[in-house]
């Protein structure tokens, strides 16, 4: 645990690899609950864990304390990146205030669901520092619309942070925890206010390859042509892809996982994963995120070194954003796609890098199906990035 100097805020993290969900949540929860006045418990757990059992265990050790959480593609904690564990982060102290909300049956009404969960911001009083944390079912399409719904309700008044739940790449169903329930097709949110800074940062570690391309035909999240040529072929050409990536779905996914499409934004390129939803016959590319007709895009690539540099930048920016305040903890959400690029050893080294930045303060996170960090402007849903929230 780390407690702020004035004793008004603390954060704790516990993790258990016990296969029984109740036992694991009990152990992790007790390890995380190390201060007075716990305000929120955040659970990141393997897809096979039983949400109801975890909620039950946490309800016993901290009655009345709200719990939000979700399934993952791997948990990130001080003991490294692990699978199938229960990781619990708790924040508390008089300096924090929390309110939570839940939206269910989100498919087809993403915007409304976003606006719905955003209303929990009104349940907490005025405070100098605030953030709305969101955990979404990672298998929901059009995640951007959930954030647009939040922005419609809240405007620029509060930053957004969070991630999309994973299901260990099974793509059959993730879950989120909130309001004492385990849910799919749902979004959970927690407004966290603090009397000390809350600092967000997000970074990707990709760089562009060759000349840009114009999206000359796109619809419903798929890019059909780039520079008037079939999108898949031009994308692969730009990256000098091996022949089997042009013909074999598996080979394409493997190749594209570490090579997102960079969409031009005013402040730089935004990475868009195009490795899923492969369309060999139609030669289109896409990954569920909106890429509009007319956009300027680049093929991008990266490696462990560039991702490590992004990790450094995100941590440094988040911690620097606390100003003169000492950090008490961090939430670190990293894209599931990065695991494929980094491999097992690289993922371990990434965790070590996070631990180095944490320098003894607790941190918790998970490998997501999409990161949420709206810091400025209107957009905040990201692919293949590291998003960090630092608490002072």
């Amino acid at each position, binding site marked *: 645990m780390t407690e702020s100097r004035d004793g008004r805020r603390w954060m704790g993290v516990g993790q258990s690899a016990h296969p029984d969900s109740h036992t694991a949540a009990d152990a992790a929860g007790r390890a995380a609950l190390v201060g007075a006045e716990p305000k929120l418990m955040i659970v990141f757990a393997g897809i096979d864990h039983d949400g109801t059992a975890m909620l039950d265990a946490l309800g016993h050790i901290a009655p009345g304390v709200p719990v939000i959480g979700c399934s993952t593609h791997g948990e990130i904690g001080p003991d490294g990146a692990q699978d199938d564990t229960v990781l619990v982060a708790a924040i508390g102290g008089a300096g924090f205030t929390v309110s939570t909300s839940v939206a269910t049956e989100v498919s087809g009404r993403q915007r409304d669901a976003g606006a719905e969960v955003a209303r929990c911001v009104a349940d907490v009083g005025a405070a100098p520092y605030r953030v709305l944390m969101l955990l979404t079912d990672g298998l929901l399409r059009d995640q951007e619309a959930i954030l647009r719904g939040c922005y419609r309700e809240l*405007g620029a008044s509060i930053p957004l942070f969070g991630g999309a739940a994973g299901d260990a790449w099974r793509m059959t169903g993730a879950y989120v925890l909130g309001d004492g329930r385990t849910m799919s097709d749902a979004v959970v949110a927690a407004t966290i206010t603090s009397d000390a800074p809350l600092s967000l940062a997000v970074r990707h570690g990709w760089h562009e390859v060759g000349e840009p391309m114009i999206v000359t035909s796109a619809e419903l999240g798929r890019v059909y042509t780039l520079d*008037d040529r079939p999108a898949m072929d031009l994308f692969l050409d730009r990256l000098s892809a091996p022949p089997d990536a042009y013909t074999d779905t598996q080979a394409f996914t493997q190749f594209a996982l570490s090579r997102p499409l960079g969409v031009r934004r005013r402040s730089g390129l935004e990475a868009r994963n195009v490795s899923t939803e492969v369309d060999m016959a139609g030669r289109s590319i896409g990954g569920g995120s909106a890429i509009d*007709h007319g*956009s*300027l895009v680049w093929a991008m690539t990266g490696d462990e070194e560039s991702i490590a540099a992004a990790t450094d930048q995100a941590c440094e920016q988040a911690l620097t954003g606390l100003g003169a305040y000492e950090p008490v903890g961090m939430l670190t959400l990293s894209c599931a796609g990065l695991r494929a690029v980094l491999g097992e050893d690289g993922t371990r080294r990434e965790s070590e890098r996070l631990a180095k930045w944490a320098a003894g303060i607790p941190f918790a996170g998970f490998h997501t199906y999409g990161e949420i960090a709206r810091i400025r402007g*209107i*957009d905040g849903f990201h692919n293949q990035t590291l998003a960090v929230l630092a608490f002072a």
Partner: protein
Amino acid sequence: MTDHGAESPHVELLELLAVMSSFSDEDAAMGGAVERAAQTLEAEVAAIVVDDRVTASVGFPAKSVPEADLLAIARRERDTLHVPGAGECVAIVVEWAGPHHGHLVVARAGNGFSVEEHSVVRGMARLLSLTLTMLRTLAAEHAMRERSEQLLDSLRQRQRLLEHLFDIQRSISRRRPLAQILDLITSAAQDLLGDEMVGLWVYDTRDTTRARLVSSVGLAQDFAPEGLTVPLAEAGATGAAMLTDDVVVRCGYQDTSDLIAELTGGALCASMAAPVHDSGTVTGSLLVGSYRPDRVYGPSDIQTLRAFADQVSLALTDANTVDRMYQAFRDSLTGLASRGLFLDLLRERLEAGSAPVALLFLDLDRFKDVNDTLGHAAGDALLVTTANRLTSQLRETDIVARFGGDEFVVMLSGVSNATEASAVAQRILGVLGEPMLIGGRKLRIGASIGIALHTPDVPDPADLIRRADIAMYQVKRNGRCGYRMFVDDMWSAVD
């Protein structure tokens, strides 16, 4: 690093066009437009003000939209806006004219907006105005149809045609072939305005005092084949609209030129033309003509023609966007990589470290003499020939750029030693030394080439280029026409 923010603003407008053409009612269009404006400009706030009322906004908590502040910005009484969560934001406003005039406001934390960003917002406001006009007309006619059975038939037809405008927008946004889109527009304009003749004319690229016909309906092919050019001064309303950048109406063709009389079989009684633009510059005009003596063009006809002319402008701008982007990264004369692109690619290649790299810095000998004695056109022809000959000696994996003037730089990939690099330089000198037919004369041109090899101690692309440049100057000093490999001793010659 490429400057991602400095591309043509037309790309953003295309994105907006794709979004706008998907909306079927006014509120949805305004809601979509403010979100898109905020997204494109990475702004916290965007709002639309119509008739002293905020009709759409994004960036403020629901029910807390500071209407009075936004109206003050629309009236240009202030230029900053307090936005909860973002602090004091710089605001810009663009007004659009016409029957449904309004304002688009965008506000962002941090520094002000660049000239390019102003241009993007202006373009967005224009597109928004066009879309809203169409949607309002549609909505009004829906309402009228309910009230008046008598108008039913004509309104049905009008509504069908206005819906056709959306089809045109969709065709543009899906990048159907340009000729097909232009034909779609001229046919729709004829259908909607009910005139006998429609012609789309653009400046003839070979002679800008003439206009060229690119699409037409109702003109006899015998008299007016596509591709026909006419002098602007004799092109009636068409030429006048192109020269004045405004809608021109001509009634009565008693004093018309022989040419116009011939093109229309002497039947033209009235005509109207609206200018069309490519990226904001007048590039032609859309002409409608009637053979009926009682034809009078009223304000609603003018507005309709303007709407079709805007569609033409969008189609032309869209069609040229890919070309322009290509040009931004390419030398416009030779089609070789630009300096910026070359530096990006060199940096990438060096960082990747997957293959050794050698650079050749090439400067033509006595190019200035050719320019001075034979003129710039001959100089340009010489540069193009040089570029072609250079390219002919290289592999697909090699990259050649024109750095400006008569300087060229070649990146040889997979070349790690002086022998291989020298062999390429030798080949290039050989092929450039062959006679060139320039301006009717046979010229022989020599070149000086400096070579630098990439080694681990020279990680910086600029440093590598400098070494090749220094070696090239050594060749110049020693009598030109040859090549030299860079060696460290050459630094002293520079100092």
